[in-house]
């Protein structure tokens, strides 16, 4: 029996373009833009000023509040300006713009701990905050928050997420093939921090080479098991992964903490290893730059703050005029409105579509086929919710669990009449929150 959850879809994989291409280090561009808001939670506050000299890995901001982490410079050079700059969210966000001097002078702010086994859990948490770690799967949730569960919740299982269920993306795949030791050490650090004895590494079966590598490497640890899971979208979603591997169901409105689980991306585990053992803050990451129209799609090790334009140029440009650039995967990624948007901590891929590929078919009325109901991994009724919102009956959708929707887009993908179901749901959520705020 294959290990999976109920529902989900099978979009074309399209991973062949970059699956076998090793990670290449992309030289840093002349100018780097570091947005002060790269993660879920409060934006951080700048601590450098215009004209300051900064080194590679120097902290540029301090975090305010619990759900917030600092950002770091990814090059050495001079702070050119601190001003609003186009951001993937669609609005301009305060960013630090650094002129690269090309020397990459390293910053020695963070100590390296070769013998990390002697560190206490609180020290590891401190390092993960100091290094600005945020979830590298896409949502960029601050890692330190995940590593500090409330004392009432007992965590007994850590799951490392190597599913990479989004089509096109191969960044995690290549990372698992090229840095397995770092990932496993990172996982052991997470386990030690939380005092957990049992852990799983979930990898989709379309990456047999990665499964093989990890099975060999984890043989000596009897508390880590590698699990090949069914190829299906959204298999890499937190709640679906927990369901597939442990059979536990996260309650509506709950968090993985509530069922004693913690899920981390493989990239985050590697970043944690780098931060603790090498004293290297999170200032670079692997990004898959892909698309049928690109001349030379690649997996690149990119400095955070590199403009998207630079990545597309590094892939020798496109065959056809660009119709759409998506940051992230094709299912949950965000379409960009400008190519000077910088890469952030949560960017796992840059997807380039030609004009014909980006064309959207016309929306037609619902035919009540209920395919969206079949595939919804959260077992909601997208058709019903969308119809209610279309008729502006926003409050009623709360009874249908609109806030349990994780916006995976499976419903919109399968809809035979191409209804923009997810757009309706996002609009409904926004409208309900707005009305709630008004009532306060």
């Amino acid at each position, binding site marked *: 029996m294959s290990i999976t959850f109920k529902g989900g879809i099978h979009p074309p994989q399209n991973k062949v373009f970059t699956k076998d291409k090793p990670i290449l280090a992309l030289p840093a561009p002349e100018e780097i833009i570091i947005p002060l808001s790269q993660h879920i939670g409060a934006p951080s506050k700048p601590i450098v000023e215009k004209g300051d000299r900064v080194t590679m890995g120097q902290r540029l901001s301090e975090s305010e509040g619990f759900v917030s982490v600092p950002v770091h410079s990814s090059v050495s050079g001079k702070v050119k300006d601190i001003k609003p700059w186009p951001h993937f969210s*669609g*609005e301009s966000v305060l960013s630090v713009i650094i002129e690269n001097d090309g020397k990459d002078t390293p910053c020695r702010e963070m100590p390296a701990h070769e013998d990390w086994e002697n560190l206490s859990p609180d020290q590891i948490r401190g390092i993960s905050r100091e290094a600005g770690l945020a979830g590298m799967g896409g949502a960029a949730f601050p890692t330190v928050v995940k590593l500090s569960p409330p004392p009432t919740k007992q965590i007994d299982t850590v799951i490392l997420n190597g599913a990479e269920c989004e089509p096109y993306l191969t960044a995690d795949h290549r990372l698992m093939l090229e840095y397995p030791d770092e990932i496993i050490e990172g996982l052991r650090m997470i386990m030690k921090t939380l005092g957990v004895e049992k852990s799983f590494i979930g990898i989709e079966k379309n990456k047999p080479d990665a499964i093989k590598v990890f099975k060999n490497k984890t043989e000596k640890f009897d508390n880590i098991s590698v699990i090949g899971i069914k190829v299906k979208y959204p298999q890499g979603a937190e709640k679906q992964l927990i369901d597939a591997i442990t059979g536990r169901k996260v309650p509506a409105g709950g968090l993985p903490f509530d069922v004693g689980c913690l899920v981390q991306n493989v990239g985050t585990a590697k970043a944690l290893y780098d931060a603790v053992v090498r004293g290297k803050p999170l200032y670079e990451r692997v990004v898959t730059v892909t698309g049928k129209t690109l001349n030379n799609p690649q997996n690149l090790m990119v400095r955070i703050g590199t403009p998207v334009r630079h990545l597309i140029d590094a892939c020798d440009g496109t065959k056809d005029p660009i119709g759409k650039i998506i940051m992230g995967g094709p299912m949950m990624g965000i379409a960009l*409105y400008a190519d000077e948007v910088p890469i952030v901590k949560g960017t796992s891929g840059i997807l380039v579509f030609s004009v014909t590929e980006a064309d*959207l078919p016309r929306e037609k009325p619902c035919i009540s086929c209920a395919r969206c109901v079949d595939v919804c991994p959260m077992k909601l009724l997208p058709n019903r919710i969308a119809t209610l919102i279309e008729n502006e009956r926003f409050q009623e959708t709360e009874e249908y669990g609109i806030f349990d929707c994780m916006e995976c887009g499976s419903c919109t993908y399968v809809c035979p009449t191409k209804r923009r179901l997810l*757009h*309706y749901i996002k*609009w409904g959520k926004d409208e309900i929150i707005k009305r709630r705020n008004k009532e306060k």
Partner: protein
Amino acid sequence: MKLTIIGAVLLLGILGFLFGVILAFIARKFAVSLDERVAKVLEHLPGINCGACGYPGCSGYAKAVVAGAAPVNGCAPGGKPSAQNIGKIMGQEVSDTKDMVAVAKCSGGANNAKTKYVYKGLFDCRAAYILANGPTDCAYGCIGLGTCVEDCPFGALELSDNCIPITDYDKCTGCGICVRNCPKGVMHLLPRDQLIYIACNSPEKGGVVRKICSTGCICCKICEKECPKDAIEIRDFLAYIDYEKCIQCGICIEKCPTKCILDRGTGIPLPEPARVTRKRLKELKAAQE
């Protein structure tokens, strides 16, 4: 045979009589005393159930007025006469009700303002707004998908060729539904006797506005200086008119370098024939597809 018919008639007759007695008894015993003022108030309401007062239809508002939960001048479409009549019924003094009309505080639209991206989603301003504040480059300008036009219960709004809502002032009752539904706060209520208004909603600095819109308020302060009655004030890089002081002389309209001050009498011509709303929306939808 005969007996059967008589029996049936008798039985049904007795049953009918019994039910009649029961119903009469219940009607007396459980009678709900209706305040006759509700019906009277309802007589003086327009009866269009627009919902602008915040209650479910005219009857809902009438009940709320009689219960003392709603003000007597809460019906905007009914205006002054209905407020006075309801006030008489309720024995209350009616505070001054102002007759308002809605205008769009934006003149950017498709021709004058830049767009950030091509929008291909749902045909509703509020749905477009969740995607990075809508496809317009200006975070405060009109999106132009006509949510206000669709929602107006009086058919008083139409989209101009520039994709900006324009008001038919004869039909507009100042109910404020468009003001409530506009995600960008572009719609604005103006006293009916006020003709001049600022057709820009952006509190951004002049340089920022100039880059993205040719008819935005760039905060040059010329209107503030030229106004003979000191009725115009610049706050947060946007001009505001004090309607109490304004004498409608129109000097500011002439002096404004970006032409973002408009006279609603002559500022925007109404399209002819006036009822093009649905047609125009359909055209826009077709163009988008």
